[in-house]
């Protein structure tokens, strides 16, 4: 077999290619750094395959347009970053409630507010879970490599279509703008799932039929004249005020994800077998973590890596199981401590929890997780001129108080020097 041709692609371009591979035929978006390249790429590529691209008047209109388009039967996607993700939240809730498959990409940047548009962050992971109001199911995937952005975007579409739900792709500015050689998969190489359409006659069709776990979804204009609303509804899609039916409906949309967690979860495990210390890391932070774990292994320490590719639903089973047998779980992330709360929740006090110096923006620069060659660090704008010292100096007293407000325990932790030494 001939060797496959490699392409040097940016993460955002790989995301667009993944969407096309999955059969995405509708994109609506609004320009926002650092996700804009996805729109730019799709504006060229989608029309070539007969797909539709539209730049909407705002972020809200973009999530609205893809939801409308999906109801006509097209696989659809939008991409954004922090502030745009905030704006889209009501529309994401609508798609959860109305059970409309769609994919929302969030290339995370620093926040809050306008924050740090050109810098990376992982501070939207909790917004992805809790951003929209009401109880709702959430599926979010978190790729860490350019190749993986492609394959995880395909998986996001598959999960969206299979479970009739919006799926989020969360990665950050680092991998979004990083260029890596990737192999474009051949047709048939990756699984592509399409939504199930009804085969019954229109009188018997109910868009939220509870006899199915995930009801087939008809497309507008194909003879099933069904109703879609963001109100709590019955199985026929029409609104109801009946508390019992509302309860059942809400439970059903949560259950359809809850019951299939084993199918949705995806973790990468590295050196976990006899590890005493485990790093729980996702996205580009996991790249640094992988380096640190390997370095620690080389110097004879038993350190492993758990890298969830599905952030939501949370990989609770893997964490629970690990917490029983390891001494420490370290959770580095590019935020002030978000996923660590969830990890702690499922570790249930069975092991020690540590997080290295949290960063509001910028890659983790502690020596422990320092992975990128120095020249790649230039875009950090010299914010962290002396990475190692920076870590050692923190926390400053004022900052410490602030951070304590976030979490009760925190120390700077050095994997390489000792697994129990605190600084």
């Amino acid at each position, binding site marked *: 077999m001939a060797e496959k041709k490699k392409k040097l692609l940016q993460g955002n371009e790989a995301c667009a290619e993944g969407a096309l591979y999955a059969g995405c*035929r*509708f994109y*609506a978006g609004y320009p926002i750094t650092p996700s804009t390249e996805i729109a730019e790429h799709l504006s*060229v590529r989608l*029309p*070539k395959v*007969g797909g*539709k*691209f*539209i730049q*909407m*008047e*705002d972020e*809200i*209109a*973009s999530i*609205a*347009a*893809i*939801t*409308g*388009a*999906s*109801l*006509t*039967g*097209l696989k*659809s996607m939008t991409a954004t970053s922090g502030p745009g993700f905030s704006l889209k939240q*009501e*529309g994401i809730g*609508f798609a959860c409630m109305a059970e409309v498959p769609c994919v929302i990409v969030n290339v995370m940047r620093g926040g809050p507010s306008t924050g740090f548009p050109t810098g990376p962050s992982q501070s939207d992971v909790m917004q992805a879970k809790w951003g929209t109001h009401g109880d709702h199911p959430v599926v979010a995937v978190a790729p860490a490599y350019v190749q993986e952005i492609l394959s995880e975007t395909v998986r996001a579409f598959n999960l969206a279509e299979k479970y009739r739900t919006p799926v989020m792709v969360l990665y950050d500015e680092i991998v979004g703008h990083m260029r890596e050689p990737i192999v474009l998969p051949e047709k048939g190489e990756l699984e592509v799932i399409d939504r199930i359409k009804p085969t019954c006659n229109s009188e018997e069709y109910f868009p939220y039929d509870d006899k199915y776990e995930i009801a087939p979804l008809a*497309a*507008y*204009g*194909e*003879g099933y*004249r*069904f*109703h*879609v*609303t*963001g*109100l709590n509804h019955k199985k026929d899609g*029409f*609104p109801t005020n009946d508390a019992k039916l509302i309860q059942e409906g809400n439970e059903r949309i949560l259950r359809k994800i809850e019951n299939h967690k084993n199918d949705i979860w995806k973790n990468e495990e590295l050196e976990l077998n006899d590890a005493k210390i485990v790093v729980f890391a996702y996205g580009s932070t996991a790249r640094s973590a992988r380096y640190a774990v390997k370095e620690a292994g080389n110097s004879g320490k038993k350190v492993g890596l758990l890298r969830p590719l599905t952030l939501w639903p949370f990989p609770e089973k893997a964490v629970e199981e690990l917490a029983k047998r390891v001494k420490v779980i370290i959770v580095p992330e590019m935020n002030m401590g978000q996923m660590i709360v969830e990890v702690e929740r499922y570790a249930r006090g069975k092991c020690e929890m540590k997080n290295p110096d949290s960063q509001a923006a910028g890659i983790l620069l502690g020596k422990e997780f320092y992975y990128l060659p120095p020249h790649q660090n230039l875009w950090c704008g010299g914010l962290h001129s002396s990475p190692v010292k920076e870590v050692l100096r923190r926390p400053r007293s004022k900052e410490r108080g602030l951070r304590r407000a976030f979490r009760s325990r925190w120390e700077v932790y050095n994997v390489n020097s000792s697994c129990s030494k605190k600084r």
Partner: protein
Amino acid sequence: MSTAVAVKKDKAPFDYNKYLRPNKLPHIWCPGCGHGIVLKAMLRAIDASGLSKDQICMVSGIGCSSRTPGYVDFNTLHTLHGRAMAYATGVKLAKPSLKVIVITGDGDALAIGGNHFIHTCRRNIDMTVLVYSNAIYGMTGGQYSPTTPQGANATTSRYGNIEPVFDCCELAKASGATFVARGTAYHCQELEKIIFEAVQHKGTSVVEILDQCPTYYGRQNKYKSVTEMMEKIEKDGTVSVKQADKLPPEKLQGKLLRGVLHKIERPEYCEQYKKFIIGKAQGK
């Protein structure tokens, strides 16, 4: 003229049930509300247009008017407050064979959805936007909206509204809509013709429909009856485009024009997309 087809005389009574979802009735609208009159005019216009029920996608936002899609037997989408036209844009661009009709209110279209309203008009994407304008937020209990007249009372303007109104039709025209008209619930046969023409139009067609909210606007502004409201606001408050030509300017003071106010030909968005974008991308 195609408009003559819209009103058929000496025929059997119109069968509204053909287009309604009878088991979803009764509707939520209050006694005296104008939305029912508008709904019936719309159904007659749709019938006259010869569109099949499967061909029509009706999209709405939030509010009293936006409950309409629940009662009609089309492909129906009841969306978020203000966002109906954005959802409708997605539907139309994804499947241009659908005839998209947006049902929205004055608050929905001109306040929270103002941005989507002007940009939909600018694109001239083929859809009919019916703005049920009753000058109040009815669903939430009578707050002032962008079409509440200055001086009028509402639950959030107890000392009289000081905000100037949006002229929905002028806004649509200035934003690029290629068909702009105004009708009222009082002139229901004329409204039917206007909606018929709007549905036939290729491009963004906007119809502002003045109707009455006796429950919230009427009571707070001392209207004694629904008929008084309809006569004062819809009959005496408007003048048809034809009559306006014959009247001296002083007689038009404070009156809104009724009828088709603006109609031009301009390339439609989905056709342009197909012709230029898909055409160029695929080298046709």
